[in-house]
């Protein structure tokens, strides 16, 4: 059992607080992704879990044992670094064998275990090479190989794919997901790429300024973002956030005036929102359709084939982005109508907290 619990972890460097009361319960064999903008504290949190950095306060519990003061090896973790951190003077074999050499494992045993790791990672014919003779993807696999020979309970990855080109990143994403399934281990994965987060994670932790914004499955975050920050961060292209004024609050929801005087009634729980308040209405580009509603002037069209990502401005200068069908007959400079699907729209109050949607779809998966 390798559950990983973080209890009220805080971290300060000198007078700057970079992590605030992080509370997290990760299940056995779960693939959890930490995602957030640069500098939000993802690496720091991962390094605290690894034991490379000491938390200023809080407890780390792995598999039910408090390991807050334990050595990384005793925590049962292993870590893959962003720069791979391969030993350039050692062969691939010795790189993978390094943790076993430290343990003074018998030679025969060591050979079988390195051999098995190399097989899983398709490195068998590369064992005699030095890291400098490998491609980026192969180096990444060696770094992963070094982390799996020790059979750790928890794997930690710090942006392992960020040095690779886009195509290779796609391949490695699939490989890592497969590896997770075949190893049956708990994995914590740090990235600032929301596509990686959405595609690989069982659950995603969205971090912002050292705080957890939300912890949930990818589709939960997509359909039920708890805050404006999560809504803007998850989903590609980013969600449109339109300023709106509340016209009335009724039993069927909130009626609001959008830029260009479009009036919509959103089926959400009003919470503390009152008539006359400013709110923000969040609409995903893929939910906008060609129908009466908002009037936008098209500035840029990105035709991707299947869809045309359309960037425009609303009256008053608010930018809007819509994912329209691939062959939509619209040109740059045209004025188009964009219908707001009220059931798919989100509303956020002034503090950035979401107003609960009543008609949200069932979450798949």
């Amino acid at each position: 059992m390798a559950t990983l619990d973080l209890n009220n972890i805080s971290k300060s460097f000198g007078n700057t607080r970079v992590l605030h009361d992080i509370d997290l319960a990760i299940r056995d064999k779960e693939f959890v992704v930490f995602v957030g903008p640069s500098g939000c504290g993802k690496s720091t949190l991962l390094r605290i879990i690894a034991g490379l950095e000491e938390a200023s306060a809080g407890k780390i519990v792995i598999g039910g044992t408090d390991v807050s003061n334990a050595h990384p090896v005793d925590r049962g973790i292993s870590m893959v670094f962003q720069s791979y951190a391969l030993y350039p003077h050692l062969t691939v074999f010795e790189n993978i064998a390094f943790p076993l050499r430290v343990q003074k494992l018998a030679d025969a045993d060591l050979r079988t275990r390195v051999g098995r790791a190399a097989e899983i990672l398709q490195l068998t014919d590369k064992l005699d090479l030095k890291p400098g003779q490998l491609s980026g993807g192969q180096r990444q696999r060696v770094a992963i190989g070094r982390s799996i020979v020790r059979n750790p309970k928890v794997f930690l990855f710090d942006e392992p794919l960020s040095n690779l080109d886009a195509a290779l990143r796609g391949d490695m994403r699939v490989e890592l997901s497969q590896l997770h399934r075949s190893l049956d281990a708990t994995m914590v994965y740090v990235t600032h790429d929301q596509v990686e987060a959405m595609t690989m994670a069982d659950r995603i932790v969205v971090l912002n300024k050292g705080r957890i914004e939300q912890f949930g499955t990818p589709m939960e975050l997509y359909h039920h973002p708890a805050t404006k920050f999560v809504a803007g961060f998850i989903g590609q292209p980013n969600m449109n956030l339109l300023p709106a004024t509340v016209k009335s609050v009724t039993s069927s929801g909130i009626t609001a005036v959008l830029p260009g005087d479009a009036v919509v009634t959103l089926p959400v729980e009003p919470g503390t929102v009152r008539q006359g308040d400013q709110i923000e209405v969040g609409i995903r580009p893929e939910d906008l359709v060609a129908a009466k509603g908002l009037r936008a002037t098209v500035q840029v069209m990105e035709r991707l084939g299947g869809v045309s990502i359309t960037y425009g401005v609303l009256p008053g200068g608010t930018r809007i982005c819509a994912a329209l069908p691939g062959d939509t007959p619209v040109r740059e400079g045209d004025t188009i109508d964009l219908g707001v699907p009220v059931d798919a729209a989100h509303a956020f109050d002034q503090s950035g907290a979401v107003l609960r949607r009543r008609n949200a779809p069932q979450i798949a998966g």
Partner: protein
Amino acid sequence: MMDRYTFLQKVGIYIAIAAFLTFVLLPFFEMFRVSLRPLDHLMSTPFRFWSDDFSFAAYKQMWISVPLLGRYILNSIFIATSVTTLTMIVVIPAAYAYARLQFPFKAISLAVFLGVNMFTGAVLLIPLYRVLRTLGLLNTYWAMIIPGVAFLIPTGIWLLRSYLEKIPRELEEAAYVDGASRMYTLRRVVIPLAVPGLIVVATSVFIGAYAQQFLFAIAFNNQREYQPLPAGIFEFVGYQQVTWNEMMAASLTGILPVMLIFLFLQKYLIAGLTAGAVKE
């Protein structure tokens, strides 16, 4: 690498290099010329740059004039090698500590090391003499080795520390996460990666040790068999005359083994400047 220089720039560079090399190598050339000529030609006026009776006679005669010459040369190499070895044994862990660990008075102690280096050995000769006498080390090899080590440690630490700092920290963190101790990491990761830097530092320590042994030898040792070459060479200064040609021949012969070593190490020295490209 791209050819970044125009023809004229190249000519300029080569002229500058030639001027520099002439300046550095001319004394050696002069030594060699003197060593080839009979003694009475050296003192002739007007001075003649060229003569027709060059010979290697001095290279034979010197072993007879100063019977211990071979011993002196070996002593020199022995002392410089011992100084270098001991210095490196101290400098490697110290430089690593300064490069990676946090401890009180780190910056100040580093500055003090450099400050101590500003005093040349000459200023400290008398206190050093008393120390060595108290320890009973006068007139032994140790009298020339220990002060040499002491004076070379600070520069060694400064040089090696900056090299070690360039080794990516993540490599050591990876080793730490995999359970390696500091000493294991130093031995299996840091030192192998620092080899080019170690060669550069060892070379400069060796040169320093070679250069400073004269002072310590004449001050702390009057045992003939222990004298290094720079001190032993004084035996060519006779009551009547100085046999300059033999002295120069002996000096060149004494430097020769060291020169050969450096010729061999040269490719590492140059590699040392470009290696360490650990990750892109």
